[in-house]
């Protein structure tokens, strides 16, 4: 049963009165459900407070607390795991509500585990936390680069998910197969903390840079992570839980073939441009002549008008990240525009606009220290 519009009056131990209006919460996308679907045991009804599909509280009806003085709640009430032989009290806050006490643990309750509540040492009830009511399973939505032929000095993969995923689990669920049969170990760098975006929906996984960097000991002894002219399958296994503890239901795989080393920096001068007509909102089409980093090619680049004002618009990457289309919000005017690119734009091998990923200082020219690279184009 879901009570969508219940209004609960809360009062914490210090007498501060808080109001939680579920309707408002729903409007502001904070889902607050009083779930009565948990399997209950013991003598009393315990309700779970759900917030953002997490069990963030337990409501203990006041009728069972009549003999507990308000200033003794912290000492008398105890919530603990049923499996805890020592009945270790769970850390959290007790808040006085109109109809009882709400216990809010320091971290959300865990689905599948059973919790008990005791008053003055006597167990008064227990409840198993069910899985959150969810309508969508987490899924892997993309792996970048999308190309199926990758350079042997490929530096990183991006994994994009439909839901925020649990951190610290990546290498338990991501595996690499060589020629469809042999699992390849030690390919990825085991970084803690892992490199996630703020929302935990985009993971960056580096292939071990120590093995890519020429002449470093890992490179010499273990070789490059990806071997030239070899087929690989990258697999994201099912079972990886998101932050709601809902797991990915199906394996996802990407096949690719390893081609030659990429030892050339991206260069704006070598890009081909298809410029749109004035007084249209047709896209500016930039052909990189190679696939570039999916995230950086959209985030390190912008279009400026001749006076340096940024042109607002949408960036779309096509043809396996080898083509960028910029569609302006307003029509193009006749005149000169500028493609501005931060030095950090990288190709698939981590070569950026200034330098190669690993520069042979005995052969390569001194690297540039420029921060911004530009290229002009005309709309006529």
């Amino acid at each position, binding site marked *: 049963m879901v009570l969508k519009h219940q209004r609960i009056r809360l009062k914490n131990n210090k007498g501060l009165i808080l109001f939680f209006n579920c309707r408002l919460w729903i409007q502001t996308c904070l889902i607050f459900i009083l779930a009565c679907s948990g399997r209950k045991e013991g003598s009393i009804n315990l309700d779970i407070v759900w917030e953002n599909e997490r069990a963030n509280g337990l409501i203990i009806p006041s009728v069972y607390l009549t003999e507990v003085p308000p200033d003794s709640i912290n000492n008398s009430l105890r919530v603990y795991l049923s499996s805890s032989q020592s009945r270790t009290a769970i850390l959290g806050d007790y808040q006085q509500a109109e109809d009882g006490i709400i216990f809010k643990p320091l*971290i*959300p309750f865990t689905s599948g585990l059973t919790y008990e509540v005791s008053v003055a040492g006597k167990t008064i009830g227990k409840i198993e936390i069910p899985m959150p009511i969810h309508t969508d399973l987490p899924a892997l939505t993309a792996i970048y680069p999308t190309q199926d032929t990758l350079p042997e000095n490929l530096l990183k993969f991006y994994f994009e998910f439909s839901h925020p995923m649990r*951190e610290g689990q990546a290498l338990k669920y991501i595996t690499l197969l060589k020629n469809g049969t042999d699992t390849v170990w030690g390919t990825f760098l085991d*970084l803690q903390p892992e*490199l996630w975006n703020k929302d935990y929906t985009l993971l960056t996984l580096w292939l071990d840079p120590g093995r890519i960097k020429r002449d470093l000991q890992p490179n010499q002894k273990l070789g490059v992570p990806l071997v030239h002219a070899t087929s690989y399958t990258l697999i994201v296994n099912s079972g990886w839980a998101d932050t709601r503890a809902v797991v990915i239901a199906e394996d996802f795989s990407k096949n690719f073939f390893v081609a030659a080393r990429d030892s050339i920096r991206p260069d704006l001068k070598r890009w081909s441009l298809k410029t749109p007509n004035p007084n249209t909102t047709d896209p500016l089409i930039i052909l990189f002549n190679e696939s570039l980093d999916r995230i950086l090619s959209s985030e390190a680049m912008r279009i400026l008008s001749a006076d340096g004002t940024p042109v607002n618009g949408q960036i779309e990457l096509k043809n396996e990240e080898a083509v960028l289309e910029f569609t302006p919000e307003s029509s193009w005017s006749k005149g000169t525009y500028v493609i501005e690119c*931060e030095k950090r734009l990288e190709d698939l091998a981590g070569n950026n606009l200034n330098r190669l*990923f690993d520069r042979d200082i005995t052969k390569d020219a001194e690297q540039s220290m420029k921060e911004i690279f530009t290229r002009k184009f005309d709309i006529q």
Partner: protein
Amino acid sequence: MKKSYYLLAVGLSALLLTASTHRNAPPTGFINGTPAIQNINALAFGPDGILFIGDSKSASVFAIDTKDKTNLDKAAAVDVKNVDQKIAAVLGTEAKNISILDVAVNPVSKKIYFAVQAADNSTVLLTIEGDKILPVSLKDVSYSSVSINNAPAEDAKDQRGRPLRVSSVTDLGYADGKVYVSGLSNQEFSSTFRSIPFPFANKQDQSSLEIYHAAHGRFETYAPIRTFTTAQLNGKKYLVASFTCTPLVLFPLDEMKPGTHVKGRTVGEFGAGNSPLDIITMKKGDDSFLLMANSSRPVMRVKYKNLESYEGSLTEPVAESYATAGVSFVTLPMVNVLHLDKLDDSQVLVLQRKANGDLDLWSTGDRWF
């Protein structure tokens, strides 16, 4: 006469009150409130019970006045079996649903602090007293903070209004009035290393620099720092850093100026297929030692005097498979150590995954150094 005594008493009281007020005054720039910490990734203690928290999600370092200032010279020995299970129990879950992200010891009180991550990626700060695990509230505390996301482009939004890159804090340290922060970008292959004067000033005076190291005098690459410490060698202060690809590299701190391109001197390679996890410095008599925990090698000990006398830089590739090179070091009979910290002058705190899978927190005496 009575009046004189009275005035003297008033004067003494005022003096004591001033002294007391001064002692309890918050550090410069600190305010009272609830810091907007989004994630506790890295911990390090500064002076007077100040705890630095590295927050990758808000790209900030927070300085928290823990008020934990009762001095203790020698810590009691630590031996907490299955510390992850004990932490999980007080958090109401199982050990598989939590991760201990960092451990730090307050050098004043010798109290141990943990950054713990739950399965929903939220993080909490805990401390341990004996075998009792307690929460450390970050509500209504005295704190200050500094942004580490100061590159102009990083504060901007792109043309579709999406937030830009995250700078993950890989390690945090404090020495001689400065907070040092190493970070990695979740986008480009780059490494930032910042030295930030503490107390944090309104006008930031951060050094952000690019660190390179050369492999055997030939190939030069960016060098993302994994873990570091600071040390004095031959009277000069150095950053002693270890990288995602294991070499131990020295950088003179006085050469690390904002915006500079600093190349370090590689003094050791400690074997392929390994990543450094934690570095600490311990002192015994006139000798100082560096202790380094590793992902797939035992704890290593390097004598600073050997670092001082090792004038060279590795120029020749290591010939033998999985061999090591450079400064001499001792391998300690201790594997799967995930975190190290100095418990007191003669004890090291160790978080270790045992062969049977248990995660134990314990301390060792100076037999390690």
